[in-house]
C-alpha cells in the first residue's frame, strides 16, 4: 500500500517501445516512493532506462502500464495538456547539456517557468534576480547563454529549475558535461538549494561522486529497479 506522505509514488510502471516488429521493454514493473525533501540518486548504465523513468515521472511520457502519482495527483489519467501544465507548476529540470533557451537571456531563462506558471512580471523579475544571486551569476543576467561557460550555464539551469519553487526537481546527468570540480560545485549548489527549500530531488547519473550526497540510491538494471540504502546512511549528508 503506498504511503500517502510520499511525494512521488510509482506503481508497477512498465514501459515498452515498439521497434520494428519487436517490443523492447525498457522498464519492468517499477514501483517506488520518494519522500518529500529527499535527495535520491538513480544509478544505471547508459540505456538502462534512467531517462525513460525521469520522463515518466515528469509526465513527458506515459507508461505502458502502471501509475505515476506526484503529491497525490495521478499523471497517467491526465491529458497531455494537463500533464504539461502540471509539470510547469510542480517540476523543475536540470539536463546534462544545460538546455538553456538560446534565444533568451540568462535572466529571461530563469523567468520563463515563472511566467509560464502565470506570475506577474514584477514578481518574476525579483524572484529571478534572487535565484541568480543564489547561484552566484547575477552579473550575467543580461547575457545570452552562448557567452557563458559550461559551469555557469548549469548554474543558470539550476536557478531556472528551482525558480518557480517546484515540489520535485529532476536532474538528468547534471555533471555529465562538466569537469570534476565544476561538477562538484554544481552538485553542492543543487543540494543546498533543495535542502533549503525542502524540495525533493532525483538525480539520474552514473557518476559515483554524487553518491555521498544522497539519502537514497536506486539502481536500474535491465529495466528493474533495486533500492539500496547507502552505507554512510545515518551520518550527516554532505552539503
Amino acid at each position, binding site marked *: 500500500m503506498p504511503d500517502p506522505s510520499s511525494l512521488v509514488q510509482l506503481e508497477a510502471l512498465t514501459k515498452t517501445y515498439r521497434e520494428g516488429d519487436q517490443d523492447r521493454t525498457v522498464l519492468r514493473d517499477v514501483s517506488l516512493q520518494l519522500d518529500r525533501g529527499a535527495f535520491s540518486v538513480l544509478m544505471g548504465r547508459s540505456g538502462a532506462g534512467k531517462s525513460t523513468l525521469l520522463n515518466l515521472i515528469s509526465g513527458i511520457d506515459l507508461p505502458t502500464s502502471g501509475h505515476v502519482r506526484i503529491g497525490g495527483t495521478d499523471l497517467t489519467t491526465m491529458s497531455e495538456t494537463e500533464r504539461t501544465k502540471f509539470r*510547469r507548476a510542480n517540476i523543475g529540470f536540470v539536463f546534462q547539456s544545460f538546455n538553456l533557451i538560446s534565444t533568451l537571456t540568462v535572466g529571461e531563462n530563469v523567468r520563463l517557468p515563472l511566467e509560464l506558471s502565470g506570475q506577474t512580471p514584477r514578481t518574476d523579475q525579483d524572484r529571478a534576480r534572487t535565484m541568480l544571486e543564489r547561484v552566484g551569476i547575477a552579473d550575467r543576467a543580461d547575457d545570452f547563454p552562448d557567452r557563458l561557460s559550461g559551469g555557469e550555464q548549469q548554474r543558470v539551469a539550476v536557478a531556472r529549475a528551482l525558480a518557480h519553487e517546484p515540489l520535485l526537481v529532476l536532474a538528468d546527468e547534471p555533471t555529465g558535461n562538466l569537469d570534476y570540480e565544476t561538477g562538484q560545485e554544481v552538485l553542492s549548489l543543487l543540494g543546498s538549494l533543495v535542502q533549503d527549500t525542502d524540495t525533493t530531488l532525483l538525480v539520474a547519473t552514473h557518476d559515483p561522486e554524487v553518491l555521498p550526497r544522497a539519502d537514497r540510491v536506486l539502481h536500474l538494471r535491465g529495466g528493474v529497479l533495486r533500492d539500496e540504502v547507502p552505507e554512510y546512511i545515518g551520518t550527516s549528508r554532505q552539503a
Partner: protein
Amino acid sequence: MSLLQRSSRRYLTRHPWLMGLSVLGVAIGVAVVVAIDLANTSASRAFQLSAETVTGTATHQVVGTGETLDDDVYRRLREAGVRPSAPVVEGYGTLRRGDRTFQVIGIDPLADAAFRPYLGTGASGDLDLGTFMTQDVALMSAPTAADLAVSSEDTLRVEIEGTTHAVAVAGLIEPRNERTRRAVANLLVVDVSTAQRLFGQDGRLSRIDLLAPSDDAARAVYLDGVRRALPDGARLQRSDTRTETVTQMTEAFDLNLTALSLLALIVGAFLIYNTMTFSIVQRRGLLGRLRALGVTRGQVFRLVLGEAAVLGLVGSALGLLLGVVLASGLVQLLAQTINDLYFVVEVSEVTVAPWTLAKGALLGLGTTLLAALPPAREATNAPVSTVLRRSTQEAALRRWAPWWAGVGVLVMGGGGLLLLGTQQSIWAGYGALFCLLVGAALLTPLAVVALASGARPLLGRLTGVIGRMAARGVVTNLSRTGVAIAALTVAIAATVGVGIMIDSFRGTVSDWLEQSLQADVYVQPPSLVFRRSTATLDSSVVRRLRAVEGVAGAYSVRRVRVQARVGPTELVAVEPGPETEDIYQFRDGRPDTAWPAVRTGASVLISEPYSYRYDLGVGDSLRLQTDRGQRPFAIRGVYYDYGSDLGVVLMSRSTYEQYYDDRGVSGLAFTAADTTSVDALIADMRASVAGLQDVLIRSNRALRETSMRVFDRTFTITTVLRLLAIAVAFIGVLTALMALALERRREMGVLRATGMTPPQVGGYLTLQSSLMGAIAGILSLPLGYVLAYVLVFVINKRSFGWTLQLSVPADVLMQALVLAVVAALLAGLYPTWRMARASPALALQDG
C-alpha cells in the same frame, strides 16, 4: 511581450537573410496578385466610367440591329411624345497631338442637358450653340487640354478610321469633382451632325437615350409606348446592358490572368512552408526544452503561427506596395491587350481599390498561415526529452515518402475527377490544375529519393567520394531538399506548361493564318481594336482599288455587330470565292453541302468559339435581329477560327444584303494577276488611293507578321507572370539551400576537420545544388507537359472554346532543364561561399 514571443522575435532577427527572403517571396506573390487585380479593376473601371459618362442619367436606350440605327427613329419617338430623349453618335478617334485615343460623342445640345448635365451644353451654359451645331467644333476637358497644351479655339487633328479631320476646340469642360474629371478626361463632345460626318454615318445614330419614369407602373406604360413607336430593326434595352456585355467579353480573359497571378502566390506558399519547416527543424531542440519546461503544445503551435503571421504581414504589406507599383506598368500592357482583342479603353491611371488591397493582404496572410500549418503541427510534436535526433526524423520522412506519393496520386486523381465531373467551369479547370501541382509536390520526395539514389553511382564514378556524398546528402536531408526541389519543380513545370501552351497556341494560329490568308493583298482601314476591325472602307476607295490594273480577283468582307437571340454577335459577311472552301476548315458539317446553302439562302456558319459559347451546332437555328426583323438562320457548319474568342457568325454577302440595308465594306482581299508582282500591285494600290482615306494595304506576309506580332503582344502579360513565378521559385531554392547550409555547419566542420579543403567543400555543395536543380528539371518536364495538356485542352477550351494543336517544342524543354540547374547553381553560390569560408572549429563548437 511575453518571453516566448521575445524568444520568437530573436530567432527571426538572428536569421535576417532567411526571413528576408521569405518575406520577399510572399511580397512578390502578393504583389503579382494585387497588380493583376488592380490592372484588371483599373481597366474595367476606366471602361465603366467612360460608359457611364456617355450614358449619363439615361435609363434606357434604343439601338439598331447593327452598330447604328436610322435617325428617323428619333423623329418618330419625338412625334410619339417620348421625352426626354436624346440622339447619340459615338465612336473613337485618335488625337494626333499626344497620340491619345479619345471617345468622341455626338449629342444634340438642346435635348442633352437632362442626360449629361456635366457637359455644360444646356441652354443656360455659355456655349455658343450656333457654332457648336453648325461647325466642326468640339468640347474637351479643361485639365486634359492643359495637359496637351491645347487652348480654346485651337484646331485639333483627329484621326478616325484612317481619315484625319480638323476639329476646332469650342470650349472647355470644367469638371466639378474628381469623378467627373476622370470621366471626361478622354472625351471629345461634338454635335450629333458633326459626329455623323466624322464617322461617315450620315442619317444614322449610335443610339437614342431615354429617361423612363422611376415609378414602376408609369415606367411600364412609358416603355410600352416606346416599343410601339419603334419600327422593325430598332430595339429597346436597359442602358446598363452595354457595360454588362463588355464585362462578359473579358470575363474569361480576366479570370485566366487572375489564375496565373495566383501561381506566383502558390510558389510563394512553398517558400513559406520551406522556411517555417526549416525554422522548426533547426529549433527542434529548443522547442523540446520549452516543452519540458511546461510550454503546452497549443502554445508552441500559436508561437509558430505567430511567427508566420509576422512574416505574412510584413510580406503582404511590402507586396501591396510593390503591387501598386507593378500595376502601373501592367495596366498599360493590359490596356494594350484589351485594345488588341476586345474594345477600346484608355487607362490613364491605376485605380487603387481598397477592396483589392484588402484581398491581397488577406490572401498573403492566409496563404502564409496555411503554409505554416504543417510545420506548426510538426513543432507541437517536437520530442520533449530531446532524445530524438534529426536523423531519425529524416529516416521517418524517407519511410513516409511512398505514403506521401500515394496521397499525391490520390490528390491528382481528385483533380481528374473534378475535370470529368464538370463541363464548362473554368474554376474547376484551375482547381484540377492546382490538385495536379499539389499532387506532384507530394510525389516529389519519393522521386527525389529514387533519382538521387540512381545518380549516386554515376556521380561516384565521375567525381569520386564527393559525388557520392553529394547524392547521398540530397536523400539524407530530404525534409529540406524535398521541399526545395518540389518548389522549384512546380515553378519550372508551370513555366514549361505555360510555355508549351503559348507555343501550341502560336503554332495553331500561325497554321490557321497560313490557311486562311490565301489572297495576295489585304486592305482595311486602321482600327483601334485589332481583332475586331468594324471600321468601314470609303466607297470611293473600294471602287478605285477594285479598278487597279493587275487585280485578278477581289473579295469583300463586312464585319458588323448585330444582336442575336443569344447575345451580341459579330457577323461577318463574305463573298465566297472559289478558294473559300480551302480557307475555312470545318470542325462540324460538310463543306460540300454547307457552302451551296450559305451562298444561296438563310444559312450561316459559326466559328468554334461561338459554337462553344452558346452551345450551338450544325442543325440548330440561330435567330438574328435584321433590318427585316428577327429572322432564323440555319447553322450549316462550325469552322475553326482563332481571330476572336467571342465567336463569329459567317454569312454570304448576298444573304447579308438581303437582310440588312448596310452596304459598307470593312476589308478587301485581292489576288494578283499572274503577270503582276504583289509588291508592284501594292505600290499601284497605294498610289490609287493617295489623298483619300488612310487605309492599310498589306501583303499576305505583312498581315501575317502583324497578326503574329499582336498575338505575341497579347501574351506579354502571361510571360511577365511566368517570369515572376520563376523569380519566386529562385528565391525558394536560395532559402532552402541557405537553410541547409546553416543547418549543416557542424557536418561541414567535421569534413573540414577531417581534411577536406575549402574548394572541396565548395565543390561538394555546388555539386549537390546542381543535382537538386537537375532533379527538379527532370521532374518538371512530365509535370509541365501534363499542365500544358490541361491548359490547352481544358482551360483554353473552357475559357475560349478553341481547339489547339499541342506541340512540344524542344527548346522549351531544354530551357527548363537549364533554368532549373542554373537557378539551383546560383542559389547554391552564397551558401557554398559561406560554408567554404567557415572556420571548422567554430562550426564544430556551434553544433
